[in-house]
């Protein structure tokens, strides 16, 4: 794959937190429609890497081009780029003062000048898709974690983004709720959404990923298909990691 085809192109990115090298000369490209899953131990830099893709983190050197926009070039309209990038957080981050429906309609109405009626129609369709239409008038605090995360996915989709970023979407959930969120993500993957997912769910990686990336200590150590990854892991660090979690 050449850099020109990629919708996300990360080139030689380095980032430090104080003395710690969080990202160490990382390069990664994602093609349109591709599902990339990033795995790795805690503190390996995988969440940081994901967050640099919509500039929630600063970087010290390197270059990231998303959908044709050079993210860290001064003067880039970052808000415009972020409209194309849906993001789902570990801690859901639903707007606590808004109902589920209002969480979904706020951005399309304010940022895309969509009429309230149309935004609500779209929102209800999305809530149908994630299976919680009946909770449309609830406040986030009234929902379970799994329900909140599904609303968060629907909220990101309401902006009709080209890319979806998931930052450990199931790590804060009780085990019995993980499945409902993963189901929504798998369905999204089947529809052809471009996805970059940081997760510990190897089942999801196996089922939905086109490519799996293993990170440790701020470096990408191995990249490959799920097949290759789980059957013939090469790097000793990856073998050790897999033996610990599988």
């Amino acid at each position, binding site marked *: 794959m050449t850099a020109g085809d990629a919708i996300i192109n990360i080139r030689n990115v380095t980032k430090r*937190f104080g003395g*710690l090298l*969080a990202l160490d000369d990382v390069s990664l490209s994602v093609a349109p429609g591709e599902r990339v899953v990033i795995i790795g131990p*805690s*503190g390996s*830099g995988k*969440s*940081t890497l994901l*967050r640099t893709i*919509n500039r*929630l*983190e600063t970087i010290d050197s390197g270059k990231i081009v998303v959908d044709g926009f050079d993210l860290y070039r001064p003067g880039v309209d970052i*808000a*415009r780029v*972020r*409209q194309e*990038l*849906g*993001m789902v*957080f*570990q*801690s*859901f*981050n*639903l*707007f*606590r*003062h808004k109902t589920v429906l209002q969480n979904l309609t*706020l*951005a399309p109405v*304010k*940022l895309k000048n969509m009429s309230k009626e149309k935004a609500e129609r779209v929102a209800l369709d999305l809530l149908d898709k994630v299976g919680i239409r009946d909770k449309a008038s609830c*406040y*986030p*605090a*009234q929902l379970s974690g799994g329900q909140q995360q599904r609303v*968060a996915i629907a*909220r*990101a989709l309401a*902006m009709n983004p080209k890319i979806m*970023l998931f930052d*450990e979407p199931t*790590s*804060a959930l009780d085990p019995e709720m993980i499945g409902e969120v993963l189901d929504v993500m798998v369905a999204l993957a089947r529809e052809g959404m471009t996805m970059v997912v940081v997760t510990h769910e190897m089942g999801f990686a196996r089922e939905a990923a086109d490519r799996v990336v293993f990170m440790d200590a701020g470096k990408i150590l191995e990249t490959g298909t799920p097949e290759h990854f789980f059957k013939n892991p090469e790097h000793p660090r990856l073998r050790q990691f897999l033996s610990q979690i599988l």
Partner: protein
Amino acid sequence: MRRKPRSAGRGENLLPADAFYDSKADRMPEPEEKKSISIGDGAAIPTHADSGLFTAWRIAFVGALFAFGYLIVVHPDPYARIVRFLPDGILVTFEVTFASIGIAMVIGLFTGLGRISHNRAVNLLASTYVEVVRGVPLLVQLFYIYYALGHFVKINDMVSAIIAMSVCYGAYMGEVFRAGIESIDRGQTEASLSLGFSRHQTMFYVILPQALRTILPPVGNEFIALLKDTSLVSILAVSDLLRRGREFASTTFMYFETYTMIAIIYLIITLLLSKLVAFMEERLSRYDRR
């Protein structure tokens, strides 16, 4: 002066900013706790959660009403006469309070935003304002604006009283706004930014509406504290409740009776207001309920 421990307590008692999370480590989401800011100065807010205080509020309120009624009915002279003399003063007290709190909230909003601004100059300006105002007693500020500024420009008594109260409370209100804004989880900002909202839009659509709920109790508190502090304007030529009482007492020499009535009236007003704040607080917290 009672203002001193108050200003010392401010800032430290406010919620810690949860800005210092560690984004590189795998973060666990914060538990969905109810955020609140506790500054105990205006009046105690009687919520149902605090049953002891709720009962205390009832005792104080019923007691004050009873004392008021008893004095007027059993000793109409001089108490009924005093009460008939005071309504103008109550009106002025409320006028000064409402005008000052309104202006103070606007000043406070901008000061609070200034205090968290990334713009060095704006931040420094807001912080300096807060420091200076917090360091000068309200009574001195009142004298200063009334007499010192009156030297150069002719300002009406009432207006200078309102300016002084607003400037003073604007600084305190700024700290309340700042703490309220900083108490909102950083994830809310990140979620909003990631949807494509600008920093300003994020502040106005996402952060401030939530901060407003968090700061309502302290703002209500400030309101009540301000109402009580308006009694200071009686030393200027503003005929507020206390000043009217002094006028009555100085002609009749009934100091004890007059100030008893004044105290009861202030108490009834502040108790009613603290109840109102509690009611609003419960209404606004509906989305936190499960």
